[in-house]
C-alpha cells in the first residue's frame, strides 16, 4: 500500500518532452555544478531515475525523545542508510537543520506536494485538556497539527507507548489528559509500535517492512506488528526454565540473583508483556532487562505505570493463572529436594495444562477486545 505513483525526476522530465539525452546532459551539468568529478555522472543519473525516497514526517508531542534516540541506535539497517537512502525525513524536530518557520515550510511543502503519499510518524501523546495549551508548536496545538497532517498521510506509525497508550503522562491522574494517537485521528491505517522506547530494530524493521514489501505488516488485534509483539517476554525468556523449576530470586543481589534465577518474585512483568526483548534483545543483541538482573517493567503494555508497584510480584491476573502459583511451586520444590526430578515433572505437567487453558483464554480476550489500549 506504500507503493507510490510519485514520478521519478526522470519520469517527470519525460512527461515534459525531455529526451533521455537531454536528461543525461542535465545530470552532467548538475554534477559539474556540484563540483563533483565526471565519474559521479552515472551515480547522479541513477539517483534521478530510481524510485524517489518515501517522504516521511515525524512529529514530537508529549514525549521524552527516547523513541528518536532508540531509532538512531538501529544496527540494521544503520540509521544513516535509512535517512539518506531509504526515506526522505522531511520533518523531525530532533535532527532537521531548519528551525522555526523554515522547518514549518519544509513540513507544509511535503504535506502539499505528497498529499496522500507520505508516511506520518508520531512520537508522544496528545494533551486534550485545557483546549490543548499543554503542548503547542509554532503557536498551534498538538491536536490541531496532527489532525491536519493525518488527513494527507498514507499511513501512520505510532511510535512508543506515548503515542500508543499515553505512557507516563497518562498515568493516574493524567493531569493534562494525555491521549493516545488512535483516539485523536481516524480514517488512516495506524501501526502501533509500543515500548518505552521500542527496540531500535523493531522501529526500523517496521519501516523496512513498509518499504521492502510495499504493504503494512500483519498486525495483531491491537494494531501491533505480529512479528514483534505476538509473544510474551516470559515465553521467550532464557530464564524461563528457572521459573518452570521454581527457582526464584528472592531479593536483589541474593545468591539466587547471582545465579541468574527467575525474577518473577521481585516484580518481573514478563508474564503479562508482549514484546520482542527476549528474542531480539537490545542494542544489537547485547542484553535485555532480565538478563541484566532487573525484572521487565512491562513498558510495551497499556497502563503499565499503574500496574505497580514494580517490585511487587504480579497478583492474580485473569488469563495468567499459572503465575499466581509461583510461590507454591517454589515452596513445593524447596521441600522436595530429594524428589527433585519428580517434582520437576509434576511442575512441567501443571504448566502445560495451564498453558493450554491460557492460550484459549488469551485468544478469547483478544477477540473480545479485553485489552483495548487506552491512555485515560
Amino acid at each position, binding site marked *: 500500500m506504500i507503493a507510490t505513483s510519485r514520478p521519478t525526476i526522470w519520469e517527470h522530465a519525460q512527461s515534459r518532452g525531455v529526451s533521455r539525452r537531454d536528461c543525461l546532459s542535465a545530470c552532467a551539468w548538475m554534477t559539474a555544478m556540484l563540483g563533483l568529478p565526471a565519474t559521479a555522472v552515472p551515480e547522479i543519473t541513477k539517483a534521478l531515475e530510481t524510485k524517489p525516497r518515501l517522504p516521511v514526517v515525524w512529529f514530537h508531542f508529549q514525549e521524552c525523545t527516547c523513541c528518536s534516540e532508540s531509532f538512531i541506535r538501529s544496527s540494521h539497517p544503520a540509521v544513516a542508510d535509512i535517512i*539518506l537512502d531509504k526515506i526522505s525525513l522531511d520533518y523531525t524536530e530532533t535532527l532537521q537543520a*531548519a528551525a522555526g518557520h523554515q522547518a514549518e515550510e519544509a513540513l507544509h511543502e511535503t504535506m502539499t506536494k505528497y498529499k496522500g503519499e507520505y508516511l506520518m510518524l508520531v512520537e508522544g501523546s496528545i494533551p486534550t485538556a485545557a483546549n490543548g495549551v499543554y503542548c503547542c508548536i509554532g503557536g498551534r496545538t498538538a491536536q490541531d497539527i496532527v489532525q491536519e497532517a493525518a488527513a494527507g498521510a498514507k499511513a501512520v506509525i505510532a511510535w512508543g507507548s506515548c503515542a500508543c497508550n499515553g505512557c507516563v503522562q497518562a498515568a493516574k491522574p493524567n493531569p493534562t489528559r494525555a491521549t493516545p494517537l488512535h483516539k485523536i485521528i481516524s480514517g488512516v491505517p495506524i501501526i502501533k509500535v509500543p515500548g518505552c522506547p521500542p527496540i531500535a530494530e523493531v522501529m526500523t524493521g517496521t519501516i523496512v517492512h513498509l518499504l521492502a514489501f510495499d504493504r503494512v505488516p500483519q498486525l495483531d488485534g491491537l494494531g501491533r506488528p505480529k512479528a514483534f509483539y505476538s509473544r510474551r517476554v516470559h515465553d521467550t525468556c532464557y530464564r524461563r526454565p528457572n521459573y518452570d523449576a521454581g527457582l526464584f530470586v528472592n531479593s536483589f543481589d541474593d545468591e539466587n540473583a547471582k*545465579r541468574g534465577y527467575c525474577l518473577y518474585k521481585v516484580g518481573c512483568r514478563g508474564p503479562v508483556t508482549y514484546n520482542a526483548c527476549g528474542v531480539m534483545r537490545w542494542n544489537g543483541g547485547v542484553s535485555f532487562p532480565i538478563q*541484566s*538482573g532487573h525484572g521487565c517493567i512491562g513498558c510495551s503494555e497499556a497502563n503499565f505505570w499503574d500496574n505497580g508497584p514494580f517490585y511487587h510480584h504480579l497478583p492474580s491476573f485473569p488469563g495468567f493463572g499459572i503465575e499466581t502459583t509461583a510461590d507454591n511451586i517454589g515452596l513445593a520444590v524447596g521441600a522436595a529436594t530429594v524428589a527433585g526430578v519428580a517434582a520437576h515433572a509434576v511442575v512441567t505437567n501443571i504448566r502445560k495444562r495451564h498453558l493450554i487453558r491460557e492460550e484459549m483464554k488469551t485468544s478469547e480476550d483478544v477477540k473480545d477486545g479485553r485489552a483495548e489500549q487506552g491512555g485515560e
Partner: protein
Amino acid sequence: MAAKRIVIDPVTRIEGHLRVEIEVKDGLVADAFSSGTMVRGLEIILRGRDPRDAWAFAERTCGVCTTVHALASVRSVEDALGIVIPPNAELVRNLMFCAQYMQDHVVHFYHLHALDWVDIVSALKADPIKTSEIAKSISSWPKTSPNYFAEVQKRIGNFVASGQLGIFAKGYWGHPAMKLPPEVNLLAVTHYLEALEWQKEIVKVHTVFGGKNPHPNYLVGGAPCSLNLDEANAINAERLALVGKLLAEAKTFVEQVYIPDLLAIAPFYTDWASIGGGLRNYMAYGDLPKNGFGDPSKFKFPRGVLLDRDLSKVYEVDGHDPRQVTEAISHSWYEYSDGDQAARHPWEGETKFNYTGPQPPYEQLNVEGKYSWLKTPRWNGHAMEVGPLARLLVGYASGNAEIKAVVDMGLKKLNVPVTALFSTLGRTAARGLETILVANWAQEFYGDLLANIKNGDTRMFNGEKWEPATWPTKARGVGLTEAPRGALAHWIVIEDEKIANYQLVVPSTWNASPRDAKGQRSAYEASLIGTPIADPEKPLEVLRTIHSFDPCLACAVHLYDPQGKTLNRITIG
C-alpha cells in the same frame, strides 16, 4: 529603527518544545524571551507511589539525557532513607554516567549543533585530497584517505541531486555567518555520519549493566545487575571485557575525531568567543564520586557556585538548605497561594496551573505577563548558568589539577585567554574538553571496578532499607547529579511509605526559564542580548547560542501539587 519581533518555534535539533522570541534592533538582538511550550505533569503523577519506583517514572523525564534522572531519583530516596550503596554499585553508576556523557556530547556536537557551523552544501565543492591532508594533519584517526572522503562527498551529492533534501531541507546553507572552507565542511559532514554510527556502540555499557538503552534500569540501594565471575547469567569476565572494549573505543573516538574536529572548526569562529556570554554566575552540583557519594570532596567534578565571574572564590552549594535553591513563577503559567512574587524551596513548593497565554493558534506570546511552562529557579536569589562550562569553571576555580590542565590545553590550542570561555564558543569548547576528562576517568573507574572484584568484593546492592517497614514515617531527601546539560536535582518527601512530594529542578530549567519577579533574565535570554543578526529571516546566530547550551525542554517543564488539587479539572477559556 524600530525593533522587529522574530519568533523561532519550533527550535529544532534539541530535545523538547522550545520557542524563542527575539527583538532585533539595528542588526543586534535587543531582547529575548525563552518559552517552554509543553507540559506533562510528572510530579503529580509520582505522588502517592512507591519511592522505589520513582526512578522509572523520573527517568522518562528525558530520553536524550536518559539515566541522569534515574540517578538523581535513586539518590534522593537513598538520601532520605540513609542508604549507602556498595562501592561496586557506585562504580557501575559512574561508568554509566561516563558512557552517557560521551554519547550525549558527541551526538550534541555532530547532530544537534554542527549544522549551525557546518555548511553541508559547501562540502560538495571540497577537494577530497585537501580534506584528507587536513584530516591527517590534525589526527591519527585511520579513516582519512582521499577516496574515503570522495565517497562520502558522492553520497551527499547524490542525496542533494535527488531533490529530496530530507533533514537538510531549508537549512541555512550559504548563510554569510558560515565561515568554514569546503574541505573542513566535508570533514565535518563525514564525521557526522561516522558519529551517528559510533554513538550506538558506547551506549552498550548501559545495556550490559541496565539491560537496555535508552532508559536502562536503576535500583534504589545499588545496581540491579549481580556480579558473579562463575556464572553466565551475571556480570562476569566476558561482560566486563565488553565494557572495557567499549570504553577504550569511545576514548579513541573522542580523542581522534571529536576533539580534533572541535579544535579545527573553532579557529574559524573565534568571533564567537566574545558573543553569547550572558550570565556571570555559574553553578555545579558536581559528581563522579571516588569515595562514595557522601564525600563531595572526592568528586571528579567539584561542587560549587561562582558569582560575577570571579574565579577566586567558590561558594558552597547545599541542596538541603531551604534558603539556597528556590523557584519562582512570576512569568510562568502557574500560581502560588502567597502570590506570584514568592519564591519557594522545592520541598515546600506548590504548583497550580494558571495558563494566561494566548489561545492557540497564536502568533506571539504576551511576554509582559506569564509566558512559559518553565518555572524560574534561583540560587540565593541569583540566576545561574549550569552545564559543561559551569562544571569546568567551578573545577578551574577550585584548583582541580586535572580540570585546570585540560582547560589550559584548550585555551593554548585556540590561543585565547581564559575570559574567552564566557561565550557561545566557550560553552561548546567546554563540552568537548570535559569529554576528554570523562573518557579518561571512565578508564580509571573501570580499573577500580576490576580491582575491587579482584579483592573479593562482589556486592552490588544494599538491601538493609529495602523493605518499607524499615523506613521512618516521614523522611525527605535530595538527589544531586550533573546531567550532561548541567546541575540536576530531585527533591523527595516520603510519608507513610509513599511519595508525598516530588520535584525536579533540572539544568534546562535553570538555563531556559523566563525572567524572575525582579526582571533578572535566565541564561538563554541573557546570552542572546547583543548577538548580531545578519538576516532576520534566517536567525542562524540565535540557534548557535541556544544550541551551545544543549537545550532539553522535556526535562525543564514539570509540575507538582502538594495539596492534591485536581489539576485536570482546570479549563481555560
